């Protein structure tokens, strides 16, 4: 799969063979259009990058009316990443997408600021469960919850959203980071901080997947710094049922196809029947299938 925010709505990378993808996860989509943050929005950091795009998106209505009909003609499923400031906004976006042809599922981005409390849904198990349960009640769509790693106990959040009805979790979203321009004596990003992605966070993401996969019974989608097939295999061995590629799409648009082929070659080489044979531990959902 290609991770939210790294593949737009699937229309901007004509050089990518979409049939090589397991799924496309869309840019974070909110109820109303958002213009995003003022520049500067991105900064390269050692083996990674920071971004603070600010959820620039055309709003769910455009997504449902303009994009979804085009997705419906594609062979690859498109999962819409849903963001919001309140439970009501998540529910409204999910309701608008429920039953829309071309929308294969939802991924809840619960790392956004909650203006009501000043907290983020994703850092509190009760709030994470509340938004998951509310969305679950209005949609039959596949429901993935994308976990933020900026928490003390990611397993507690994962368990909470599982209990609230999530079909899967993706682990993890970006880590909060900062970069400072020493010449200007000012943060590079206009927001001061942003989300760190890329190989710099891969060991951290892998650890989160390792922890979560052992403790939940729903599939874990591994994401964070995967640059090639070997990285993806690490996540699958750690217990992920699937992986998302993010930052690498900016560098090598054909990376997903390479990873897909690389995993296949590994299975053949090691005489394994399928990806379900990969996890090192017999834990989580993969021991039950």
């Amino acid at each position, binding site marked *: 799969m290609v991770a939210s925010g790294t593949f737009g709505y699937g229309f901007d990378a004509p050089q990518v063979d979409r049939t090589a993808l397991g799924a496309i996860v869309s840019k974070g989509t909110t109820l109303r259009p958002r213009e995003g943050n*003022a520049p500067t929005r991105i900064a390269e950091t050692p083996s990674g990058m920071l971004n603070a795009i600010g959820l620039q998106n055309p709003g769910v209505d455009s997504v449902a009316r303009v994009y979804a009909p085009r997705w419906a003609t594609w062979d690859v499923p498109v999962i819409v990443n849903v963001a919001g400031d309140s439970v009501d906004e998540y529910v409204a976006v999910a309701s608008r997408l429920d039953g829309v042809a071309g929308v294969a599922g939802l991924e809840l981005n619960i790392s956004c600021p909650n203006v009501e409390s000043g907290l983020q849904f994703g850092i509190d198990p009760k709030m994470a469960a509340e938004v998951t349960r509310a969305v679950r009640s209005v949609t039959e769509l596949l429901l993935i919850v994308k976990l933020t790693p900026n928490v003390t106990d990611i397993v507690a959040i994962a368990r909470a959203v599982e209990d609230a009805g999530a079909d899967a979790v993706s682990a993890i979203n970006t880590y909060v980071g900062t970069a400072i321009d020493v010449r200007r004596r000012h943060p590079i990003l206009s927001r001061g901080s942003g989300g760190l992605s890329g190989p710099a966070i891969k060991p951290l993401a892998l650890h989160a997947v390792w922890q979560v996969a052992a403790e939940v019974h729903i599939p874990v989608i591994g994401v964070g710094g995967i640059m090639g097939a070997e990285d993806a295999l690490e996540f699958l061995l750690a217990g992920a049922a699937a992986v998302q590629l993010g930052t690498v799409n900016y*560098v090598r648009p054909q990376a997903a196809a390479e990873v897909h082929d690389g995993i296949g070659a590994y299975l053949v080489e090691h005489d394994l029947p399928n990806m379900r044979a990969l996890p090192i531990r017999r834990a989580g959902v993969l021991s039950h299938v």
Partner: protein
Amino acid sequence: MSIAVAPAIVVERSVPMAGAVELVLYHPPSAVAVAPGQFFQLAVSAPHTILRRPYSAAWSDPASGRLGFIFNVVGAGSSWLSGLDEGDELDLLGPLGQGFDLEGDRPAICVAGGLGVAVFPGVVRALIARGRTVIVLEGARIATQLLPASRFHGADVRLATDDGSAGHSGSVVDLLAQYFPPPVGEGRVGAVDILTCGPTPMLTALIDAARRQEISLSSIQVALETPMGCGIGTCLGCAAPRAGGGYLLTCQDGPCLRADRIGWDLMTDAFHG
């Protein structure tokens, strides 16, 4: 968009001006496809870097399958690129974005500040091929950082340096002011087309000067430089303020844009040159 799949081959490496390197690549599909002002994303393998580097093609020659890139050596990525030599391979993504609109019959003034000059050799060549009168105003901090005027064959080249070591002592925008009003402007709004690329403070000074002279911003085209992630419109990292609110994407709406589309009042805050 035509996307290069096979790598380009470095066929020549030179130092066109102090602090800069010019790589000449052999890659016929790119040399044929690129329009003046478009850019490529160059893959670099410098340790600990991750993103591609966006560079406008300095020029291209479809007949020989070659195209050139001129860049300053300022960071890890450009240092790595500057270390490439004849025979090395380079992975290109592109051509990307919008080039300059070269149509029209009015005199064209190309205003280049610093490394902004890197986009102009091919632009000037294409303008002259269209029979247009071309004036190049080139500014740099010091004389050795100027791209030689011989790279703009057929154009009237005027120079400016901050320290006065070549041409006008001061900003290249001062030189431009000499063309408003006559002789070229003849006091008529939009009697010339201006194409420009350079640091943000130079661009905002140019826009201020144009406004004072009541030159229509629609007669000015800017090759915008912003931080860039993907180069193809997915990361939304290369936003620049749009006139009237919201943001443009340098990679898709630009890099070459008419100046009246840009929210200049917010540009200085966003990009510090």
